[in-house]
């Protein structure tokens, strides 16, 4: 019995196109609507806020955009590999300090951080170059130490990353000749990370992170997340693909760190530790760690929620009711609720695309119903 014939007889209603055209089965541009939608949302919000011209709201947006870059870099590794990357904020910190050291003028450095190595004091680069150089430093650190760690998965992998975060944090908080030790590191000068700088970098990072996920490297990494052994017997070297993603993730983290330090203008090692990681993690979990859209909408939602809660907190404290810290509690509880009932976050781990929007629209579902009805009638006939 010829199975092919038998099966195709069963499935007569499926039309088999004669043309052997690859675009029918694999089309990169078909998947690009996600990037366009996400960037459009971000730019429209950014433009509107710039037009409003209220410094308070502009600050919230700029800080939120920097956080978005952080979450995207975090999602790049964790979302695609399934390994909780605690050390990520450490790379954000390295990028923040490194780019600040590169961009500050020697005069400011001698005044602010007298203990600094002389060769670092004399280093001076323009802001965009310093930003890139800071990210490269974070990436280089990751590239040097990550290889032996990439073999480790699941709980062991997460614990190793946690230990690594401790190492990086102690380095940042004790190396007085570089980071001013536990004291505050003040950049001086004016704020270089403006709304448009943050927005521009965020647009580039959205593109990079999304196409990484869809590239064959990203596909390999997602396969190892699903099943490491099946991936290996499909010819995927899981250590190598994880390593590439980890290093790329450290680069984006370093970039976000550089933007952050040139926005906030005074940093300490404590700015890149548990509470920061918790914030990023809550955004990725609530949005949906498996998709770029998840990181995007998670950041948007949690940023708005935190701002709202902070206002409530302020209001309560002013009216004599001690409520400081309640924002963190609410976000943490929300994260727990999501992990129990909706572990894939609000996006369900899927990407927002033009198709998914059309399907939700009333006209789209009408069309689909019509098609289904026609199909049924054909089957009857």
């Amino acid at each position, binding site marked *: *019995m*010829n*199975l*092919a014939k*038998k*099966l*195709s007889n*069963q*499935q007569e209603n*499926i039309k*088999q196109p004669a043309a*052997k*055209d*690859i675009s*029918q*089965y*694999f089309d990169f541009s078909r998947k690009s609507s996600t990037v366009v939608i996400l960037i459009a949302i971000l730019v429209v919000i950014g433009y509107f806020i710039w037009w409003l011209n209220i410094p308070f709201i502009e600050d919230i947006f700029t800080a939120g955009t920097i956080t978005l870059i952080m979450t995207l870099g975090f999602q790049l590794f964790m979302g695609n590999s399934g390994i909780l990357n605690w050390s990520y904020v450490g790379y954000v910190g390295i990028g923040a300090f490194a780019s600040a050291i590169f961009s500050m003028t020697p005069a400011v450095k001698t005044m602010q951080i007298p203990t600094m190595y002389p060769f670092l004091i004399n280093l001076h680069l323009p802001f965009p170059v310093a930003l890139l150089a800071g990210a490269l430093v974070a990436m280089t650190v990751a590239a040097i130490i990550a290889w032996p760690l990439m073999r480790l998965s699941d709980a062991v992998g997460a614990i190793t990353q946690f230990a690594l975060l401790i190492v990086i944090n102690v380095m940042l908080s004790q190396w007085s000749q570089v980071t001013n030790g536990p004291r505050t590191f003040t950049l001086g000068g004016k704020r270089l990370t403006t709304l448009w700088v943050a927005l521009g970098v965020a647009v580039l990072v959205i593109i990079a992170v999304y196409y990484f996920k869809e590239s*064959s490297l990203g*596909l*390999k990494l*997602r*396969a190892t*997340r*699903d*099943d490491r*052994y*099946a*991936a*290996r*017997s*499909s*010819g*995927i*070297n899981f250590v190598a693909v994880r390593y590439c993603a980890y290093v790329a993730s450290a680069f984006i983290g370093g970039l976000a760190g550089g933007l952050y330090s040139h926005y906030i203008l005074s940093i300490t090692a404590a700015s890149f530790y548990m509470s920061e990681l918790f914030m990023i993690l809550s955004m990725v979990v609530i949005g949906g760690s*498996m998709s770029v859209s998840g990181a995007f909408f998670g950041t948007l939602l949690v940023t708005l929620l935190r701002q709202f809660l902070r206002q409530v907190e302020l209001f309560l404290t002013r009216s004599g009711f001690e409520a400081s810290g309640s924002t963190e509690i609410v976000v943490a509880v929300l994260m727990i609720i999501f992990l129990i009932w909706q572990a894939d976050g609000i996006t369900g*781990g899927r990407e927002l695309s033009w198709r998914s929007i059309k399907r939700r629209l009333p006209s789209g579902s009408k069309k689909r119903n019509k098609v289904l009805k026609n199909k049924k009638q054909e089957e009857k006939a």
Partner: protein
Amino acid sequence: MNNNTILQVSDLYVAYGSIQALHGVCMEVHKGELVSICGVNGAGKSTVLKAIAGVLKPRSGSIRFKGKEVAGSKPEQLHKMGMALVPEGRDIFPSLTVEENLRIGAFGRRLDKSYAADLEDLFSLFPILKERYHQAGGLLSGGEQQMLAIARGLISNPDLLMLDEPSLGLSPALVDQIFELIIELKSRNITILLVEQNAQRALGIADRAYLFSNGRIEYSGRPQELMDNVDITSVYLGGQNGGDV
């Protein structure tokens, strides 16, 4: 070893820790052959496939694939050489779409017209995969997942396709479909090494068979001869209706 031999295993020893799983297995597969490995649970059937595919490291012995010694090679290297293992238990990638699952099988080849042609060819075998092309693999039914796993093995155009218990846990109707599929693949001259518990079905379609017991090959040769040997049937195949569903 003649030119026609695609896989030659000799004196293979594999152990899980201190437990010896294979005791000096010798076997070979020729081009275009369908070779079946039968035996009861724990006889070492899957172990020998995993050792050949590089998932398990052999303790000693030699595995020659297309004339090259490959014992101890990594699975990813063997995959590049043209070996495809369809692991036990419908080992697909559940969060990836059917399209992405197939693309993973096709790593190492360009996504060009010949890939599209091969996909068309696959969809003539598995029309359901075309229908579900953009759905996540985890949303497919058990039988569909098994078909996806086999399709993923086939899309790399392997020189040797190894199927580990493809009928495991499927309904009788689906088992029929899978066996008809294997016959179809055989008629397309694909070299297949099949591990099956369903011994009577597997022997019915195989060119040659190896009967495993306690990590050793108890019998090898034509399936008809093996089936004629009633003693072996009753002992290792669990009686007349043992392998039947």
